[in-house]
């Protein structure tokens, strides 16, 4: 996948294990010790954006506090129990010895072994309940965002509201990247259009299922500007592994800039430009699924997408501001080149806002990925989008089909999509 560095742990393991294998002379003990050491060190990977031990917001910090209490306790108990079992297995194994004296019950031991776990569990219980209530708190919410999961991407819509003095006068709709202001208690109201999904940004909070027909609440808050990666954690079909999401936290002032931009309709491309030809292709091929706010048909009426007639979930990403997000298709692929991506991900908190708000400039646009997507989307991300097999999904696609576009149409579309800032 295009996200170098998102899953460094497994990569690291693979290369080092490969190394061990090639040096076949090492004896077994050494190999075992090394393998364990590698596993152990892999736990300390530096570039691990989905590390649950590195909270970047209040809710995740609460969870982290709890796991620093429960994990060591459980670890000590677990190690002690397994050590004891091992000792007993070894010490009292069958060596043909006589059956030892059999006795029934030992009140002192039994009472001790009841009281100690009870004490441990009540300590754990007190902190756990405190954590549960902290995480469930919603009455001091400052902002709400509706989050809808579907195979295999997330849609966000921001209801009209006033956030930190910034007015969202018209609802905003976007996909893949969730943009929130820093130090703001944001309430996600999650649901799903097809199967159960689960929303998880480890640096900001635990996971919460998105269930069709229900609205589940999840609170996020980020201390500092930055991008926080996550992925769907409820198996949801073919491309579950490619159903990612990113939370982007911006300083309130930057957030206001983002809101102002998102509320604008798409601009009409310049007369007789390649982009204008692209708009024509878009109206032919793409409008039946993708909405672009403000886009007009040739007769001057509003072009309205009909994903409800073409896609199983009834939705496809709104592309009005495609170039304001730097990943696409369920945040699984980069819309920016790897250099530009690095600039954004490694920007200091002070510079992050400006870097993100710049969006996908022509220089940064990852032409390779976008063209690959337009050429044959299901080849890039597995989806049930084979026109010959529509009967098995109510005549609708799950995902984006291969539209067999010509290279010149792709050129035009790329030019048009680049104007959707």
């Amino acid at each position: 996948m295009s996200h170098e560095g998102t899953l460094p742990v497994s990569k690291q393991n693979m290369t080092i294990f490969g190394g061990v294998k090639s040096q076949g002379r090492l004896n077994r003990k050494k190999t075992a010790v090394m393998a364990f050491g590698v596993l152990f060190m892999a736990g300390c990977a530096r570039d691990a954006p989905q590390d649950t031990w590195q909270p970047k917001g209040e809710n995740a910090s609460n969870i982290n506090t709890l796991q620093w209490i429960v994990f060591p306790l459980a670890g000590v108990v677990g190690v002690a129990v397994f050590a004891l079992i091992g000792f007993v297995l070894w010490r009292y194994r069958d060596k043909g010895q006589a059956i030892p004296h059999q006795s029934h019950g030992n009140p002192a031991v039994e009472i001790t072994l009841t009281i100690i776990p009870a004490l441990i569990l009540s300590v754990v219980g007190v902190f756990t309940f405190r954590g549960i209530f902290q995480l469930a708190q919603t009455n001091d919410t400052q902002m709400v965002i509706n989050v809808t999961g579907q195979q295999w991407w997330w849609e966000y819509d921001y209801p009209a509201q006033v956030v930190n003095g910034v007015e969202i006068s018209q609802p905003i709709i976007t996909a893949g990247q969730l943009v929130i202001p820093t130090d703001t208690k944001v309430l996600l109201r999650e649901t799903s259009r097809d199967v159960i999904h689960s929303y998880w940004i480890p640096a900001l909070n635990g996971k919460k299922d998105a269930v069709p027909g229900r609205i589940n609440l999840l609170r996020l808050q980020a201390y500092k500007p930055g991008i926080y990666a996550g992925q769907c954690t409820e198996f949801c079909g073919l491309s579950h592994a490619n159903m990612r999401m990113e939370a982007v936290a911006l300083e309130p002032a930057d957030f206001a800039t983002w809101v102002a931009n998102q509320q604008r309709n798409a601009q009409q491309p310049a007369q007789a430009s390649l982009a204008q030809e692209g708009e024509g292709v878009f109206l032919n091929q793409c409008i039946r699924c993708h909405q672009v706010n403000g886009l007009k048909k040739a007769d001057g009426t509003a072009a309205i997408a009909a994903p409800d007639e073409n896609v199983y979930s009834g939705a496809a990403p709104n592309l009005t501001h495609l170039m304001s997000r730097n990943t696409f298709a369920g945040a699984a692929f980069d819309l920016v080149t790897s250099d530009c991506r690095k600039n954004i991900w490694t920007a200091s908190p002070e510079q992050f806002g400006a870097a993100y708000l710049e969006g996908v400039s022509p220089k940064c646009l990852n032409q390779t990925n976008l063209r690959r997507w337009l050429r044959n989307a299901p080849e890039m991300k597995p989806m049930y989008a084979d026109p010959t097999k529509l009967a098995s999904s109510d005549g609708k696609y799950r995902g984006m089909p291969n539209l067999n576009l010509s290279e010149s149409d792709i050129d035009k579309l790329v030019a048009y999509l680049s104007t959707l800032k």
Partner: protein
Amino acid sequence: MITTGSKYCFGIAGLGSLGALIYMILINPSDVGVLALLGIAIAMSIVGGVTQFTGDFDADTVSDAITVSASAPANSMWPLLLALGGVLLLVGMTTNPIIFLLGIVVIVAAGIEWALQSWAERASEDSAFNRFVRERALTSLELPLLAGGAVAVIAIAFSRIMLAVSPENGAIIFIVVATAVLAVGFLIAVKTNLKKTSITAVCVLGAVALLVSGGIAGQSGNREQLVSAAAEEHYSHKDCEETASKYFDKNSEKTVSMKSGILATIRVKDGKLSAQLIGLDAPVATVTVARSNQATILFRNLDDEEHRLVANLGVKKVGETGVVEKIVDCTQMTGKNQTQALLLKINKPSASSGPYTFTVPGLEGQEIALVVP
């Protein structure tokens, strides 16, 4: 010596590895299937190793543990029924899901009966006592199930009759039958010297009469009134007017016990319309509903007059006629302190034929914006 227990484990481990090898060669070396098979092999080797090491599961102790019952099993119809269940299962798979379900029921019932019977046969040397424990274990199962079945048959047959006849005749039938049942029951209770056969005869007669008339009523279908009401959509056609409508508002629910899955609550209080999103305390002027997804809006009326909530969802053209028709949806009439749920699924964004609004007929000039992005 390798003990019996660990032999099994090692055997499975060997088979697992072999399976993994074949899988890798024939299907795909990097498939999860290989991982699963190897996982089984590794787990089984560990378990086998531990059993072997601790000297558990010796052949002697296993044979010691089995105590063979001296008495041979009695005649039983359960194996036969079990086989019948299997046949039903197979036939049902290819024909009718109901036969398939019947097969499952027969298999489960026969399995339980058979298992309990053979357990009871080994309970003691005394066959009379064995029969007693079997009955004690099983009647607690059989009785409620049979009674439940009987109640279901009575309810279905009787309801078919009541739906087929006119409401007036229905009332008469109800009174006559109830009186007859009461009278017979009274007779049986008072006349203790009644013969058992005559009581059985009366009961069988009643059952047959119920089944036959139920069957006939079921065949002849619902009474004319109900048929025409369904055809004219009296109960699903929504009149969203200010005044109560004859059919749609007839049986409005008084309460809604929905707690999750609610998008917003819209209230009428002192003639004022207000909306609140779940999770946000301050009232809002706009409710946002994601397109193509079910959304539930609660409507709560706190005023004395009855009100209903109406969602105005733009307009549509009726076929080729060019006639433009409003799209509306609404709750039933809602009395004071009552709540109704309005379920919306809007496929087109409000930009298509909007603006969409929530209104309450009778409260003119007030609306809540409804935006579908």
